[in-house]
C-alpha cells in the first residue's frame, strides 16, 4: 500500500512538470511577449525595431525558449517561482494574496455546497422517482444548465441593483481582512453553488440509491433500526465512496468556475490574477498560478484515493496486493 502511495506521489511530480511544460509551450504560441504587451500602441508607433530588440535583451526575453523554460523549472523545483518579467517583483509576493482569497472562496463554497448537496441528494434518493425527486433533480439540472455569466449577472441585478443588499462589484484590496472578504463573497459563492450543486447532489443521490437497496442497509432495516437512522448512519457513509472518486474532477471543474466568477464580481483571487497574467504574458505568474491549481487537483486526487482505501475494505485489500 505504501509503495502504491509513493508511486502516486512520484507520478504527481511528473504530471506537474508536464503541466508546466504545456503551459510554457502554450504561452509561447500566444502572439507577442511580455515586452510587446507592456507597451501601448502609442509606444509601438514610435519605437524602432532596434530599440525594441535592446529592451527585449535587457529583460532576458531574447534567450531561446528552452533556456527560459529550464531556468524557470530549475527554480520552481526548489520552490522559487522567480520574478515577474517587467517589474522584477517576486512572483510569490504577487500570488500570495490572491491565493489566500481563492482558497477562502473555495472553502466557503464547499461549506455551503456540501450540506445543500446532501440535503438535495438525500431528498431525491429517499423519494426516488417520485415528485420530490423529480422536482429537486429537475431544478438542479436547470441550475446546471445556466452559465455562470448569466446566473452571476442575474444575482447582481436582483441583489445589488434592484435590492441594494450586496456589493455589485468587489472593491476590497487584495489583502483585505478575511471577514470582510467573506462578507462580500456571498453572491460569488451563491453563483458557484448554483452551477455545481446539480453535479454534487446527483452523485450523492446515485450513491445513496445504491446504498439504500444494499444488503447491508436491508439488514439494518430488518434489525428494526428507524428509517432516518438507516439513511444517516448507514446509507450516507456508504455512499461517500463513489462520491469521493469524483471529487478531484469536481475540484478541477470548480477551478474553472471560480475563474469566471472572479471575473464577473472582480473578486481579487487567483483566477483574476491568472487572466491578467496571461494578458500581460507574465509567464512566471501564469506558471505559478497553474502550478498551484494543479497541485490542488492532484492533492484532491490523492486524498480521494487514500480515503477510498480507508473507507472501502475491498479496495484496501487489492491496494495491499498491488
Amino acid at each position, binding site marked *: 500500500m505504501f509503495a502504491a502511495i509513493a508511486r502516486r506521489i512520484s507520478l504527481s511530480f511528473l504530471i506537474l512538470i508536464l*503541466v508546466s511544460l504545456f503551459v510554457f509551450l502554450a504561452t509561447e504560441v500566444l502572439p507577442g511577449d511580455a515586452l510587446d504587451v507592456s507597451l501601448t500602441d502609442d509606444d509601438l508607433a514610435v519605437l524602432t525595431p532596434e530599440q525594441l530588440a535592446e529592451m527585449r535583451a535587457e529583460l532576458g526575453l531574447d534567450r531561446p525558449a528552452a533556456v527560459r523554460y529550464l531556468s524557470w523549472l530549475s527554480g520552481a523545483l526548489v520552490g522559487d517561482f522567480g520574478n515577474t518579467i517587467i517589474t522584477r517583483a517576486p512572483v510569490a509576493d504577487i500570488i500570495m494574496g490572491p491565493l489566500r482569497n481563492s482558497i477562502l472562496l473555495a472553502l466557503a463554497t464547499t461549506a455551503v455546497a456540501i450540506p445543500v448537496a446532501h440535503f438535495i441528494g438525500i431528498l431525491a434518493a429517499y423519494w426516488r422517482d417520485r415528485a420530490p425527486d423529480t422536482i429537486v433533480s429537475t431544478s438542479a*439540472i436547470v441550475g446546471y444548465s445556466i452559465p455562470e455569466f448569466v446566473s452571476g449577472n442575474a444575482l447582481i441585478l436582483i441583489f445589488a441593483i434592484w435590492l441594494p443588499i450586496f456589493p455589485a462589484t468587489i472593491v476590497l484590496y487584495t489583502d483585505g481582512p478575511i471577514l470582510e472578504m467573506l462578507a462580500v463573497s456571498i453572491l460569488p459563492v451563491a453563483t458557484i453553488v448554483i452551477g455545481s450543486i446539480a*453535479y454534487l447532489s446527483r452523485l450523492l443521490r446515485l450513491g445513496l440509491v445504491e446504498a439504500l437497496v444494499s444488503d447491508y442497509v436491508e439488514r439494518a432495516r430488518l434489525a428494526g433500526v428507524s428509517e432516518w437512522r438507516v439513511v444517516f448512519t448507514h446509507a450516507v457513509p456508504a455512499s461517500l465512496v463513489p462520491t469521493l472518486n469524483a471529487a478531484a*474532477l469536481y475540484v*478541477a471543474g470548480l477551478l474553472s468556475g471560480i*475563474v469566471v466568477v472572479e471575473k464577473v464580481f472582480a473578486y481579487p483571487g487567483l483566477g483574476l490574477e491568472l487572466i491578467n497574467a496571461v494578458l500581460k504574458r507574465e509567464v512566471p505568474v*501564469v506558471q505559478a498560478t497553474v502550478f498551484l491549481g*494543479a497541485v490542488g487537483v492532484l492533492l484532491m486526487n490523492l486524498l480521494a484515493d487514500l480515503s477510498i482505501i480507508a473507507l472501502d475494505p475491498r479496495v484496501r485489500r487489492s491496494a495491499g496486493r498491488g
Partner: protein
Amino acid sequence: MLKKSGKRILRSPVTMIGIAVLTAHMAIAALAPWLTPYGSSELAGMPFEPPSREFWLGTDILGRDYLTRLLMGGRITISVALCGVFIAIVAGAFFGLAAAWHGGMIDEVIMRLVDTKVAIPSILLVGVLIPGFGQSVPVLILVIALVYVSGVIRTVRALALTIAPQGFVTAAVLRGESNLSIMCREFLPNVLDLLCVEFAIRMSSAILLVSSLSFLGLGISPPTPDWGLMVSEGVGYIHTDPWLVIYPSIALSTLVVALNLTTEGVANALGLDAARGMTKG
C-alpha cells in the same frame, strides 16, 4: 431490453417534455434559413425598432431583424459543439479502449497525459489557444474536442476494464483475433450505450462552453448570429430593452435543459448514470 427502455421513457413526462423541446430546437435550427424573412446580418430597419408587422420581435442594436437572428442563433453553436464532441468521443473511445486493453506502458502514458490535462483549468486552455490560433470555427471545434476528450477516455477505460476479464473477450483472444478486431467487435458494442450517453452529456456542456466563449469574446465571431454573442451585445441594454438579452437566454437555456432532461431520461432507462459527466470543466 430496448422495448422496456422505450416504455420507461414514455412513462416519464419530464423526459417527454425534454424530447419535445429538443425536437423543436433541432427543427428550427435545420429550417431557419427558409423560415426567416431577412438576411441574418442585413440592416433591415433602424436600431431598436419595437415589434411590428415587419419585425415581429423588433430590431437589434444595429437595426437587424431580431426574429431572424434568434432563429438562426443556435445553428453555429450547435454545429461547433456537435463536431467538437464527436471528435472527443471518437478519440476518447479509441484511447480509452487502447489504455484498458493494452494496459502497461500504453495505459500509463495515456492516463498520465489525461491527468495532466485534468490538472490544467480548461479556462486557461481556452484562453491561451484561442488568442494563439484565432477564433475561427475549426479552432473552436478542436478546443472543444480537447476539453472533453480526457473525460471520455476515463469513462470508457473504466467500463472497458470491467469488460476485459469477461469470457467472450478471452474467447476472442483464444481465437487469435487481432487487437483491432477485438476492440471493434468485442468492446465497442458493449460501450456504445455509454458513448451515446457521454455524447449527450458532453454536448450540453459544450453548448454552454461555446456560448460562454462567445459571451466573453473568445467564441463565434460577429456578424454570425449566435445566442451567446447576442446576450453579450444586449447586456448593456438590459434596463431599457431587456428582451435583447431575455430571448437568446431563453433559447439557450431551453435547449440545454431539454438536452439534459432527455439525456437523463434515456440514461435512466438504459440503466446508466448521467451524473458523472456533469462537470463544468
